């Protein structure tokens, strides 16, 4: 084991990392755009209920409150699903880089022990 071979091996291991990150972060953004769209829709419905309450007080129910509430809950659930997917993608990106970093740190440690790596 020497710095050159460790470097070659690591470069090979991380050769796809940039593309993976670009893809994952792009997917996170796309999902976020969808999520914002869904959120905008349920906020519009929510504001319909609140507008009615402001005009008529909270004791009188909006004629379509049940229907609106159900739709709002559906959209919120859809948003939550999208967000869970985003969390998974973000954790995947973290795992990918952490895996390579950990391996490199281990190899650097071994090279330093053998005195094969020039000091910083």
């Amino acid at each position, binding site marked *: 084991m020497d*710095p*050159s071979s460790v470097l070659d091996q690591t470069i090979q291991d991380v050769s796809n990392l940039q593309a993976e*990150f670009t893809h994952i972060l792009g997917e996170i953004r796309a999902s976020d755009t969808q999520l914002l769209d869904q959120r905008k829709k349920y906020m519009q419905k929510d504001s319909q209920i609140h507008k009615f309450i402001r005009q008529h007080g909270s004791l009188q129910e909006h004629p379509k409150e049940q229907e609106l509430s159900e739709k709002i809950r559906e959209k919120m659930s859809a948003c939550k699903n999208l967000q869970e997917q*985003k*969390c998974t*993608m973000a954790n995947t990106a*973290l795992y990918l880089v952490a895996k390579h970093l950990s391996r490199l740190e281990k190899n650097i440690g071994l090279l330093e022990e053998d005195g094969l790596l020039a000091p910083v």
Partner: protein
Amino acid sequence: LNSQKLRLLHQELEHAKDMALLVARRERVTLDLLEQNVRIFDQRSNV
């Protein structure tokens, strides 16, 4: 030169990991926010 490249590569991967960690935390907080919004919606209905 190879030693320096190795250390530089290590630095770059550390930076990438730090950024990925921040993104993961941001997404986790966003999920917590969405769950909180659901809770608030239900609580408002109850009130």
